[in-house]
């Protein structure tokens, strides 16, 4: 097995941490605004699950960073004190909440990928990665069941809910290609069996998403030009607003603690 660069591993861990972190922040914005009380709780439960997962990835990333940089950042420093171009999350998760259909479409497209990625990561040769992935996979199995359920309910619901869900899927589709493109230095880690080979997830993802959309009486969008860049720190304009809100306190009052 080729020696794995800790620097590349750190980047890979940030990619795993940043997507759930940013999506958790997005879901948190639904607090008190859910369509019904039950859904308000469910959305934020999912957000808290994702936040917990991000913390586990950050903790490990900090340890790996310490191995090559002498000192590693803790989870708060990684979450609150990095600028947008240092974030490695998928473009999909930073897209605005929009209406409930937009939020659930974004959730389902991500969950379906997340579930596949975690089941691969659970077999990582890196014991820590395998452990975190196995723990997260249990939560995500429920997330995807729930979000798929909403895509089907709204798609196969009233003409209005169908139109909104179809529009949401169409609008987000161009951000789905990135999930299956290996980031810089990711391929060597995948070959070493440390991280998932995301290219191999495209076929099972399309199959799963296609089946849910069919059940929801929704059309799979036509091929479009796929947006890339999130995994290298090149983001849509939305991420800056997410971070401005998420990072405000630590930026304005450095080292503030509860």
């Amino acid at each position, binding site marked *: 097995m080729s020696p794995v660069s800790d620097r590349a591993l750190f980047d890979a861990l940030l990619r795993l941490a940043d997507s759930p972190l940013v999506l958790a922040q997005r879901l948190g914005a639904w607090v008190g605004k859910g369509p019904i*009380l*039950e859904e308000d*709780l*469910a959305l934020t439960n999912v957000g808290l699950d994702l936040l917990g997962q991000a913390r586990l990835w950050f903790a490990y990333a900090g340890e790996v960073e310490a191995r090559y940089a002498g000192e590693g950042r803790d989870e708060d420093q990684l979450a609150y004190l990095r600028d947008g171009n240092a974030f490695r999350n998928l473009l999909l998760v930073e897209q605005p909440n929009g209406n409930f259909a937009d939020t659930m479409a974004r959730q389902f497209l991500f969950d379906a990928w997340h579930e596949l990625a975690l089941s691969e990561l659970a077999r990582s040769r890196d014991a820590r990665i395998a452990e975190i992935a196995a723990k997260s996979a249990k939560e995500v199995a429920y997330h995807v069941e729930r979000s798929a*359920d909403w895509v089907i*309910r709204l798609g196969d619901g009233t003409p209005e809910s169908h139109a909104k869900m179809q529009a949401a899927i169409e609008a987000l589709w161009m951000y789905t290609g990135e999930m299956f493109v290996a980031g810089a230095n990711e391929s060597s880690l995948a070959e070493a069996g440390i991280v998932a080979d995301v290219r191999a997830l495209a076929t099972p993802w399309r199959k799963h998403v296609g089946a849910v959309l069919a059940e929801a009486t929704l059309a799979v969008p036509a091929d479009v030009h796929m947006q890339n860049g999130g995994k290298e720190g090149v983001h849509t304009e939305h991420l800056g607003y997410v971070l401005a809100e998420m990072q405000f306190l630590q930026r304005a009052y450095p080292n503030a603690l509860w």
Partner: protein
Amino acid sequence: MSSEWPLWEIFIRSQHGLAHKHVGSLHAADPAMAIKNARDVYTRRNEGVSIWAVRSSDIAASSPGDKEALFEPANSKVYRHPTFFPMPDEVKHL
């Protein structure tokens, strides 16, 4: 048809061997959604091993106003209460 989702009563069994216990109610469009919502509303602290959801309208209930007719006759029959048997401390859930 009402535009409100129907009300469901939620029962959770906290561990094997115990009975399902009523924990509260919630709104949901159908049984599957009722179970999912119950999971999110009532089982966030690892409470249960199983969930029952029952349409509130399917429950036949006595009125609190009938309390006396239903329950008072038992008051004078002390022999119906199993209070005369010493219970070993180790026996739980009896």
